């Protein structure tokens, strides 16, 4: 395995916006984080905070009218003989041949929307065989065996038969598993999984998470796991990034973020989870207020209109920055940092 300190992916101050007729949606607004080989980075945050757009940005497939407006995405690629080199994905064209050879091969994506990423007119088997042969030197026979193996690995019964199925013939969960098999078929070094087990029941989820973990142990694959399920994050992640309105508000090792969360947003998130041990039918604590209008971001700390600990005059005037509060633990909140002298 490679030196732990050299991330396979570094995202620095990424800003991706959608330029719609009504205004600019700053979907990702200055996100920074790193993903390491052999590790899992969990990304959590409220719906619409920019998790999927972050993933799309990394792969260079942000749909119009969106585009990356600032920041760097660096991928460490192997150049053979044990050397590696950082490539700035942000400076490659989205449809350049280099980007195409990275997408699906070195970086694979499991989409949040299985129906839109599987072709409805091709069988599951042909899609996997096609993808595998596009990026790896395999005969048709080998690719077909790989497809069956992958489909049974992700827990699809009757895998020999399932390769002949079309996506609409599969249940939501089976489709999701087929998609995971498709992503794994290219043996990626970085797997970006956007809500990969959301459509699955717990026992299958346990199986898939187990599979991802063992693949990671075997080949040191890095995983960027996007999910709203705090249970899955607790189970899988080494590092956690909490996003709010396009920004990273807290980041750290999983035990720290769950055990000693510092940001008021992270704390509220953890409180709002129903647990099998909590009292049923009571209203769950939610985060007060609504998600701000995407065209109209609040000034100062983006969380201030909903924050239980807001300090008027401070949080609504100044923007906190992600700063260290402990070992590898970063938080963006004035409860922990001095307020800057000049307003921003």
């Amino acid at each position: 395995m490679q030196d732990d300190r050299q991330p396979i992916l570094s995202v620095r101050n990424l800003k991706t916006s959608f330029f719609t007729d009504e205004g600019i949606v700053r979907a990702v607004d200055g996100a920074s984080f790193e993903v390491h080989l052999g590790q899992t980075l969990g990304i959590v945050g409220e719906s619409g905070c920019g998790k999927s757009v972050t993933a799309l940005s990394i792969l260079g497939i942000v749909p119009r009218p969106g585009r990356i407006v600032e920041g760097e995405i660096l991928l460490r690629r192997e150049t053979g003989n044990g050397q590696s080199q950082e490539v700035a994905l942000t400076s490659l064209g989205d449809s350049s041949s280099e980007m195409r050879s990275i997408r699906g091969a070195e970086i694979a994506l499991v989409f949040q929307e299985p129906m839109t990423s599987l072709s409805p007119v091709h069988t599951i088997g042909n899609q996997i065989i096609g993808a595998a042969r596009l990026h790896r030197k395999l005969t048709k026979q080998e690719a077909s065996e790989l497809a069956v193996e992958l489909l049974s690995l992700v827990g699809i019964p009757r895998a020999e038969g399932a390769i002949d199925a079309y996506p609409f013939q599969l249940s939501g969960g089976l489709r999701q598993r087929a998609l995971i098999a498709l992503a794994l078929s290219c043996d990626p070094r970085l797997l970006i999984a956007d809500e990969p087990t959301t459509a699955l029941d717990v026992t299958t989820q346990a199986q898939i998470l187990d599979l991802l973990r063992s693949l990671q142990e075997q080949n040191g694959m890095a995983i960027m796991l996007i999910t709203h399920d705090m249970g899955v994050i607790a189970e899988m992640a080494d590092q956690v990034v909490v996003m709010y309105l396009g920004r990273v508000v807290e980041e750290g090792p999983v035990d720290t973020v769950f055990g000693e969360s510092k940001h008021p947003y992270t704390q509220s998130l953890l409180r709002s989870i129903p647990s099998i041990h909590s009292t049923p039918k009571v209203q769950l604590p939610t985060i007060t207020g609504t998600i701000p209008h995407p065209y109209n971001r609040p000034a100062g700390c983006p969380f201030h209109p909903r924050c239980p600990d807001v300090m008027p005059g401070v949080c609504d005037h100044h923007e906190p920055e992600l700063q260290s509060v402990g070992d590898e633990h970063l938080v963006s909140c004035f409860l922990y940092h001095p307020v800057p002298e000049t307003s921003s």
Partner: protein
Amino acid sequence: MENDNVLLEVKGLRKYFPIRKGFLQRAVGQVRAVDGIDFHVYKGETFGIVGESGCGKTTAARCIVRALQPSAGEIHFRAGGGEMTDVANLSRDELRPLRRHMQMIFQDPFSSLNPRMTLFDIIGEPLLVNGMADRQQRIERVEELLALVGLRPEFLQRFPHAFSGGQRQRIGIARALALNPSLIVADEPVSALDVSVQAQILNLLLALQERLGLTYLFVAHDLSVVKHICDRVAVMYVGRVVETAETQQLFESPKHPYTEALLSAVPQPDPTLRSQRIILEGEVADPANPPSGCYFHPRCRYAVDLCREQTPVLEEVEPGHAVSCHRVLELDLAGTLDAPVPQTAHS
């Protein structure tokens, strides 16, 4: 059981899909997606259906709202407080007046919304179809519904693609609520939502239920959510119901080995509790070619010879608690109370 409080009663419901092969697409077998299920839902309650991926939950839900034609069985539904009607075999025309009383919220907020329709059209469509011709009146109702599910009224003329997953699911819920139905069949309504919005939607569903006397048939795989919102639960395995009980009862003392495994597999939001789950061994059962006897036997750690040979039937072992397992009386299974209580960081 013919009880005034029963809103929905499902008897022997089956749905088989043909497996087609070859150039002529001849049927060479069938997938027993739903293979004879019975349950009833009381007015005003939330009845949960849980079970493994592909066990037939969505198929059952779609049969009940008659988006699919059942292969066999009865679906008795009390529309608008009247008599129970078997809707399993009604024609399109006969169904039309009943449809507004049962609405569905879908699992996949992406494919269930027409990308070429604005929110106003999507949510207003059922109003229009059901005779609310006045545009201004529809606008007001749609705005009201948007507010109800936490979306901004300005979004009225927006198309669904510009919304994130969570926002799109709210749109689906607003649409389902448009006609004030009595039964909402919700297929994984919160599984695509992040936790804080999930909490809001669950609170919303609970509040709406209280205010409007709604009844929910709630399909979900997240057992924490089921525990939070459901009064009673049915656990399905490969097209059949293996256990039904009041929620508390089911979680505290499950009586089917599959339920026990399910409960142990719930990921806890606490990294210190990693890997305390039972990972089910063995092949996932194939509904096209199910195992002999008890469908769960290849994966059951309590299986005995009898289990391979005979199919157990769903039987009431205590009032309101029915189980389909040969060994139900001997086994002492672990519920969630036996699990360590997680220390949530901030409670």
